[in-house]
């Protein structure tokens, strides 16, 4: 029983961070209807920015979060402005394919440049709360894991507030519902897409930064983010930001329970199995709709 409780707690805490990372991917898909393969790489750059801003500088580790959001957001905004301009100009016959290929190449470039620039060393960020919390014999988790979860849920709540209670969010939702209609109404698609890309990459960077005291940051750390993010958004439904919270928590829980009670050798496989099962029952994801909406 103790192991079950411990496993559930670990799964949920990890799932919260998965949800934050996936939210950015889902936002970009919802607004632009494209898949960003460089999502993880952008997150990695933001996490490195946070690391360099806080490591050995005396700056509190939590201030690394806004640094990561700004750095990741800047890379996301620049990517949209420079790489995706042809998409917004409507001059491509197959914009979806272009974005997949362009962001995939960008991911490889960022990864290669990061290996050369930052080296292969695993870097450990200063912790947010460097204590191991042992609640009787029932639960033993790191304080950093708890802070990461709380911050992730807070940021996710902030994103939902923006989406449902601000003009920017209304504009994003208008784009997801009827892109042409939104354009005719005077919405600047390129600018709104830029904001979505920036927000998506910024949140992913924040998510990865929250993980760095637990899992370290290194050039390849973005790849894991990308993989988990895809599983969550596909389970939740592409473009469903609200659904990614459920999807993220579910993925964390399934991975932890499967590892503990089925086989410890297939942690990553459980997520993919769930994803395949969900797709067979709900091809658009649990919260996906045929007419996409955030």
């Amino acid at each position, binding site marked *: 029983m103790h192991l079950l409780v411990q496993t559930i707690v*670990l799964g949920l805490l990890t799932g919260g961070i998965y949800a934050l990372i996936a939210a950015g991917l889902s936002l970009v898909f919802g607004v632009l209807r494209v898949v960003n393969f460089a999502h993880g790489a952008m997150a990695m750059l933001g996490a490195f920015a946070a690391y360099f801003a806080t490591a050995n500088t005396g700056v509190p580790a939590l201030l690394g979060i806004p640094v990561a959001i700004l750095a990741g957001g800047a890379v996301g905004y620049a990517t949209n402005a420079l790489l995706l301009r*042809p998409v917004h100009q409507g001059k491509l016959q197959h*914009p979806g394919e272009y974005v997949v290929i362009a962001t995939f190449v960008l991911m490889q470039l960022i990864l290669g440049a990061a*290996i050369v*620039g930052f080296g292969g*060393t695993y870097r*450990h960020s200063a912790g947010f709360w460097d204590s191991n919390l042992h609640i009787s014999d029932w639960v033993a988790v790191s304080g950093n894991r708890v802070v990461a979860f709380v911050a992730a849920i807070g940021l996710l709540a902030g994103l939902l507030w923006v989406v449902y209670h601000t003009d920017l969010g209304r504009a994003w939702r208008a784009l997801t519902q009827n892109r042409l209609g939104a354009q005719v109404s005077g919405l600047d698609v390129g600018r709104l897409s830029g904001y979505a890309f920036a927000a998506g990459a910024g949140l992913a960077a924040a998510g990865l930064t929250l993980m760095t005291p637990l899992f370290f940051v*290194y050039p390849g750390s973005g*790849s*894991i983010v990308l993989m988990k993010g895809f599983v969550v958004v596909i389970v939740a439904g592409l473009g469903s930001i609200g659904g990614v919270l459920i999807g993220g928590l579910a993925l964390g829980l399934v991975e932890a329970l499967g590892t503990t009670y089925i086989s410890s050798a297939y942690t990553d496989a459980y997520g993919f199995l769930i994803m395949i099962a969900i797709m067979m029952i709900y091809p658009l994801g649990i919260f996906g709709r045929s007419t996409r909406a955030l």
Partner: protein
Amino acid sequence: MKFSMRHGFAVTLLIGAFILAACGSSGSSTGTSSGSSTSAEAGAKDPVTFALVTPLSEPGDYRSGELIQKVGELWTKQTNAAGGVDGHKVNLKFYDDQGKPAVGASDVERAITQDKASGIFGVWHSSVTVAQMNVVHRYNVPLFAFYSWADQVTGDNLPQVFRIGPYNSQIAANFAPFIKQQGYKKVAVLAEDTDYGIGFAEALKKAVGTEATIDVTQFPAQSEDVTAQLSKIKTQNPDAVIIATVYAASNLAVRQAKEVGLDAQLIAGWDYPTSADFWKTVGKAGVDIIYPTFYDKSLALTPTGQDFAKAYEAAYGSNPVIMQYFLWDTLNAQKTAIEKAKSTDPAELVKTLPSIEFEGTTGKITFANEKGTPAFNQWMGVKQFFMQLTAEGQSGEDATLLFPKQ
């Protein structure tokens, strides 16, 4: 001009190629020559190509790949400055296997067929090495392992495959008396799901026999979060936990064991606690960790080993780690074989290598020839020690020797 998808993609690729070219060759699977410019001294004969196939990018263990690369560059520079190998200038070419068996095998194929490599060096992940063995067997070219620990590497008894370094069942056999000395009755092994991890766990079970209970918990090699596995191990109440992985979890598992309240003695599966990033990443969670290694202050380096250590420190500002000594020896093995055979023909070298004898960095190098066992084309001079780091930031030089007792 209308901007088509084709144009956009081409521009992206061009930018990519430019950036990668500017950044250097790291992460590229294309071989690049690092031969030093000493051909005037060594250039009387045709150059000979040494292929260094190693992980230089994710998901491979590129931290170790960088250390391997340094040894290759230093050896080539020194050798060419001294006149090359039997008058042949050495061209060292790098290939990035990315820690992937398929990539590693195709790298070796390219090194042999396109670059006419006389030998394959620097191989690292056991799973990759096993895939590469079939290729060198087909082309009859020597391959030198040094830290690929799977028994199968030399256990398959391929005449082209040589190892100057330890192997799993040898290491496991040395674990058994250590476990007995420490009085551990219940040992958990957190093993990555690779030829190394699983092979080590199985060899340990066999070596320990009934002296102690060995429980194996596997995990995906690329995993970063092993808290669920460690929570499960905690319920088994082991006396010690051996962490057998070469990927990210090597350091992470140490931190995460403390996180889940695992009080058992932690033992690293290999000597990664002596790597430069161990303390930076693990912090006080690493205090009291035990690790097996093949180097201790009591191990006398030969003059060759001392020269290598001095040259390495002068070139890179730090002492080499033990696996780099073994790699140095593999390069010298090929040099010795070329000098003895008076040929750079790989087939001739395969014939010559089993009978060579030379002074290595830690002792005399010869190859055992016990057919049907891993002790085939295998150097048997490895000495194993168990060390403990007792204070945060402590280096391997200051670690406490636990076994064998002096």
